[in-house]
């Protein structure tokens, strides 16, 4: 599982509240990613990071911010959650191996009421 954990695994919140999801890795990988997965849309990239304090936007970044103050943690924040942000959120890292594959965490199911 490439040592990736996500917390919380499930969260229910109300519209307008701030929410922070955490991705933690134990193997010092440089690249980390946040995706959301919705029926009919597949996996879509929200933000990614290529090093400490180095981040960039993906295709669905509006309403989300990220921070990476240390290599092992990549935080995704919804400043003011909306119902359209109800989704399953996955964190991923790049292995750095010959296949250059991304390994995914177990996911966080977020429901915004």
């Amino acid at each position, binding site marked *: 599982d490439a040592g990736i954990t996500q917390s919380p695994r499930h969260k229910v919140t109300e519209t307008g509240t701030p929410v922070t999801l955490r991705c933690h890795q134990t193997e010092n990988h440089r*690249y980390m*990613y946040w995706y959301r997965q919705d029926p*009919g*849309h*597949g*996996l*879509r*990239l929200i933000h*990614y990071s*290529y090093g400490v304090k180095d981040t960039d936007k*993906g295709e669905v970044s509006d309403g989300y911010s990220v921070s990476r103050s240390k290599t092992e943690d990549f935080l995704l924040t919804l400043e003011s959650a909306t119902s359209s942000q109800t989704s399953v959120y*996955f964190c*991923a890292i790049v292995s750095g191996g010959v*296949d*250059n*594959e*991304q*390994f*995914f*965490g*177990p*996911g966080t199911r977020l429901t915004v009421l």
Partner: protein
Amino acid sequence: EDQVTQSPEALRLQEGESSSLNCSYTVSGLRGLFWYRQDPGKGPEFLFTLYSAGEEKEKERLKATLTKKESFLHITAPKPEDSATYLCAVQAGGKLIFGQGTELSVKP
């Protein structure tokens, strides 16, 4: 615009009935095509990376092939445990662009 389209959206097979899943892509400068398997409630699990047209890779009952416009995931004599959603993605720059997936169901 970089794009990935998978077909069919859903596929139902009988155990032992071989078939193929399709992944069509348009991308400027393909740097890799990836296949993943995803079980319900879990994150995607890496299967294969293909880099150039003509390349093939195999793993148990699965074989992935790549042309300049599409990739196929061939499933030979599938078993019920092969039931899952199969995702295709292309690497464009430092990012992966995913298709919507094919949900495979294999009945005994």
